[in-house]
């Protein structure tokens, strides 16, 4: 997100924090979030789709809420009001098609109004049909889960994205020449998908709190965290949303603005400066010496940290201006003495999500086998599978697969090593000095393991990654 946009969002949030209370804030959060998902969606080469993708996000969120809400909540009148207001905002955005001066929230001229109305009609009829059903079957939730994962895969598997772009170009009557998998970018969907899956699974497990449509929409598309997280849990988020909001106080303003400024500094000063010298597909083949290769690999490791944690700080700062305390996402991950601790402190909300919705269930399932696997085998399977999935979340490509595998195997090896040497290490590190040696060597080893992993992550070709690794250890 560009600096000017962040500053506009921060200023709007500050004004909201100062002037709005309770209901006013709730409406602001909802309407601003709806506007922002249109505002941030980049222009797409496929005609009209920079307008359709935010609408698709809204429709998907509304339908998922309908599937996951309990009967009583679903029938509340305020949901209809929310629906009408959201639809009105979208229609107003669509009407800017006729007033070019007002087209500030969309990347290109909005499409024909009739098409939007048809989409609304189909969505409305679907909701109406669903509301006629006396009781929901669990299969609806499973269907929602499959649909969300299916859409996710469509966006993450390059071949599927290519064919989707191809199909959408055909649909809009555009030339098929030059179709690329990058034609179709659905901004924020990765995070939206996580939040949707979280609520669907919690509903299936019977632990989803009762939330109305407005709260649900605000949670899923909450604008400070829409593009880069963190991935909050709905029960925590609505607790803040429902808490009395007496406006922004100096006691909240200072830590919020401090966090925001820290984030801006991390992202736009440190990370953007490091980006000029960080490892990428081009410079990986240009660097002449081993020493400089180390420098650009280190630069990438720090650039990705400052970039991502900077965005998180910005999101946390803006959210605090609005009275929402989003969860932390980073806690000095490069200062952790082992890989397990690294992953407990890097993109924490993502790892917690995977632990809750993949690692723990899969471990329980493996343990439930009549002839359970041996413990090491079970750890190997679950760690590697979890890290591969985290890799696939970034994209289903060879480089992310290798990155996931690298970390999965690393976690397994650390687990085994730690098991074998825990007692010996405790005996050896009897003095503070020895403890410090152990700790510092652990930090250095972990950091370098992670930094080598970033090579696979940063470069699109595994061959290039291998060449960089060789160059690092060339004599």
């Amino acid at each position: 997100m560009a600096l000017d946009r962040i500053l506009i969002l921060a200023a709007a949030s500050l004004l909201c924090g100062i002037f709005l209370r309770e209901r006013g804030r709730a409406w602001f959060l909802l309407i601003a979030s709806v506007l922002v998902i249109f505002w941030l969606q980049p222009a797409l080469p496929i005609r009209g789709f920079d307008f359709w993708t935010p609408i698709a996000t809204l429709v998907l969120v509304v339908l998922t809420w309908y599937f996951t809400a309990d009967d009583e909540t679903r029938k509340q009148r305020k949901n209809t009001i929310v629906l009408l207001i959201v639809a009105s905002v979208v229609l107003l955005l669509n009407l800017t098609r006729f007033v070019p001066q007002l087209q500030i929230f969309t990347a290109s001229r909005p499409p024909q109004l009739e098409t939007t109305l048809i989409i609304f009609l189909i969505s409305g009829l679907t909701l109406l049909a669903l509301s006629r059903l006396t009781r929901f079957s669990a299969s609806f939730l499973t269907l929602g889960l499959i649909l969300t994962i299916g859409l996710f895969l469509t966006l993450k598997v390059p071949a599927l994205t290519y064919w989707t772009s191809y199909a959408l170009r055909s649909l809009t009557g555009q030339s098929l020449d030059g179709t690329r998998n990058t034609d179709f970018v659905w901004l924020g969907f990765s995070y939206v998908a996580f939040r949707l899956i979280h609520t669907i699974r919690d509903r299936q497990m019977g632990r989803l709190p009762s939330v109305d449509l407005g709260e649900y929409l605000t949670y899923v598309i909450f604008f400070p965290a829409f593009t880069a997280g963190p991935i909050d849990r709905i029960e925590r988020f609505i607790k803040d949303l429902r808490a009395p909001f007496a406006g922004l106080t100096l006691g909240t303003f200072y830590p919020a603005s401090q966090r925001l400024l820290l984030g801006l500094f991390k992202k736009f000063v440190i990370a953007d400066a490091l980006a000029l010298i960080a490892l990428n597909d081009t410079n990986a083949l240009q660097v002449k010496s081993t020493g400089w290769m180390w420098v650009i690999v280190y630069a990438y490791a720090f650039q990705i940290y400052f970039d991502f944690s900077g965005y998180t700080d910005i999101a946390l700062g803006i959210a605090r201006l609005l009275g929402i305390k989003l969860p932390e996402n980073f806690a000095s991950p490069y200062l952790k003495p082992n890989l397990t601790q690294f992953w407990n402190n890097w993109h924490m909300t993502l790892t917690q999500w995977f632990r809750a919705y993949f690692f723990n269930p899969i471990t329980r399932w493996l343990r439930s086998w009549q002839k359970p696997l041996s413990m090491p085998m079970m750890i190997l399977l679950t760690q590697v599978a979890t890290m591969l999935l985290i890799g696939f979340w970034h994209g289903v490509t060879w480089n992310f697969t290798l990155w996931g595998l690298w970390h999965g195997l690393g976690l397994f090896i650390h687990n085994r090593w730690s098991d074998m040497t825990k007692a010996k290490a405790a005996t050896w590190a009897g003095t503070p000095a020895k403890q410090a040696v152990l700790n510092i060597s652990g930090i250095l080893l972990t950091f370098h393991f992670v930094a080598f992993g970033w090579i696979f992550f940063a470069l699109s070709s595994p061959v290039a990654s291998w060449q960089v690794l060789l160059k690092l250890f060339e004599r």
Partner: protein
Amino acid sequence: MNHEIKPLNVLVKGLLLFLLFNLVIAAWQPRVGQFSLYNILYPGRERLPFGENPKQSYNLSLFNLDAMFASHVIAGTPKADDEFRVIVIGDSSVWGTLLKPEETLIGQLNEASLNACKKNVRAYNLGYPTISLTKDVMMLSYGMQYDPDLVIWMTTLDAFPNEKQTSTPLVANNEANVRGLATSYGLRVEADDPNFEKKSFWEKTFVGDRRSWADIIRLQIYGVMWSATGIDQFYPAEYEKAKTDLDADESYHDLTSPLNEDVLAINALGAGFHVAGETPMLLVNEPMLISAGANSDIRYNFFYPRWAYDEYREIMFDLSERNGWAYVDLWDVIPANEFTNSAIHLTPAGEKLLAENLAPYILENCK
């Protein structure tokens, strides 16, 4: 003792300090460009910073001459007793568009391992890719601080028109330097030249002048990639060759025959020799493409109609003879197939040939 921090006080004090810092910067105008990581943390650049696509070339264009020269290898190379130091000034043909540092004229001269006055010739590239004699004089005045034994000034007619002298951004953004040259060396500059970028007091503050500060910092950061890759220019896989089929057009910058001092900045040549002082300077009419395509009877190439260029050569001979300047006319020494994307840009082989042609004059001019 009460250690409680009052955020409002911190905010107010911070803002006041920032304001003060800005005012000091505007009033003082510190020469921060002199401080460079080049030649300390990483090697200096073989040629002056210039680049329109920094992310690919690991190089960028900026207007701070201090920073530009501080990043150059010459700034970090003490002159050895056995070094015969040659600085070469000129336009993009000297800087070396489309050429790697070692392929440029300067690279080829150094590769030739020449020996002048029993010293090893070491040439430095102080060319800069804009064409203006005034710009060349400005670069020369900076280059003189590095104690050259010989200056080679490569030039061509297109550097002479008066209208081009201060319009190049590097000159336009360095008015004080140019006016200093006018005062000290008689360089002709109009008192009310509209090309110069005037900065208000507020534009001189840190906030107002943030682009210049950012450029200096970016130049330092790109030093890492320059050192790591040796790349300081984007080399396109393909480029359009210089035109050899030309329009039947005799015009040249709205000028008419005969060309004279009223329309050409001939005065700048004299100022340049004045700047060089006792240091020998070799003025070179640089090679250009002589096309044999359509309308080549009217024009030599895209830049020059024959009448203008022929008159220019005569003027240069007359001037150098009258003033006793060391002058070499190498206008036709490079065959047409050794030019790249412009009538003055050479291939590596062309540069080698040029270096071979120039070498005897370097040896001749040592004293």
